[in-house]
């Protein structure tokens, strides 16, 4: 019965082909440092799932953001767990993505034919940091308010364009309801959508080129 269903699906979706290409592809000798990309992907998905759950109760308005998070933390069943995973997962993701980059650099895996994989990875690193920056404002407590003040001011030090960039980031001259709603939009739509696309290409390139062998002394 299940075999029949599987055969029907496989004939149309080529599940076996996908399995072979994605999970059964030839690899150089295994190494734990090579698992950091998968770890980053896992953390991205974990942040996605817990983030979607948080939007069910979080309210991106200066009047309600703080209260809604207090309610998630204290009034909801397992709200503390979902938010806790999202909170700690974000720090962990920045860390894992960064170590992943260091590993690729040290083993020189960014060289031909994998330059594009590296460049897209840089984009993913920037998006990950952007996620961290925009997410930090959302609780709208003192710490997030001042962190965003400082972060946006740093962007404001860009020569010539600084003041304009500052206003675009904040949605005006000050941190306001507009800042909170645009950070929220960037956090749940713009960055995740960009990352999903970049991850897709990143994975395609990894599957296409395979993983690089660690360099030896002769290299």
């Amino acid at each position, binding site marked *: 019965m299940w075999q029949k269903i599987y055969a029907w699906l496989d004939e149309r979706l080529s599940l076996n082909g996908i399995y072979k290409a994605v999970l059964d592809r030839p690899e150089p000798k295994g190494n734990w440092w090579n698992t950091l990309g998968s770890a980053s992907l896992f953390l991205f998905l974990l942040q996605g799932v817990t983030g979607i759950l948080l939007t069910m109760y979080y309210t991106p308005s200066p009047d*309600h953001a703080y*209260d*809604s998070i207090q309610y998630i933390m204290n009034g909801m069943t397992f709200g503390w*767990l979902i938010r806790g995973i999202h909170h700690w997962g974000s720090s962990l993701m920045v860390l894992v993505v960064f170590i992943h980059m260091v590993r690729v650099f040290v083993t020189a895996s960014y060289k031909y034919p994998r330059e594009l994989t590296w460049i897209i990875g840089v984009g993913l690193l920037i998006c990950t940091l952007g996620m961290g920056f925009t997410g930090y404002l959302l609780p709208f407590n003192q710490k997030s308010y001042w962190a965003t003040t400082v972060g946006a001011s740093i962007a404001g030090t860009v020569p010539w364009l600084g003041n304009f960039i500052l206003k675009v980031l904040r949605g005006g001259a000050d941190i306001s309801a507009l800042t909170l709603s645009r950070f929220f939009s960037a956090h749940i739509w713009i960055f995740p959508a960009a990352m999903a696309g970049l991850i897709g290409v990143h994975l395609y390139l990894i599957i296409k080129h395979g993983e690089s062998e660690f360099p030896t002394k002769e290299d």
Partner: protein
Amino acid sequence: MAGSHHGSAVSYHHISRRDFVKLTTAALGTIMGAVIGLPAIDYLIDPALKAPKTDAWIPLGKLEKFEVGKPALVTFTRSKVNGWEKTVNSYGVFVLKKSDTDVLVLSNICTHLSCRVNWKEDRQEYVCPCHDAQFGINGEVLGGPPPRPLDRFSGEQVKVEDGTLFIHLLEG
């Protein structure tokens, strides 16, 4: 094909490295999925389990002020704490005084899909603006889609104290 097991000398108690990794991955994946998945379900349905309850006697006004034989709409509000916010809900009931001792109190919530009905004096019926349900002056269904008459406050849900009419509002 049929004789392929010929070459596999793996004993029953020996588990290959590949199978071990597969099994461990599946087991850990299941545990991790359950650790997040089960609380997530509870998290999603939580407001339904914590819906605030209402249990209060609501004064509708002096009985003597109601006109005999003509339904009058009485509105009131109740505030509830929903999650992290206080919400004010509006209610409406129709009071029909039939005599000085006989009062009928009907909910204005249509029994079809919960729109609010209006009393049409010229037609002597309650009409729902959403799907044209029609109810008689005592709440009975005259036409349209409603499955049952308008809900009424009766018996122990209605009382008169010092000439003031009260209804007992029970929710949740």
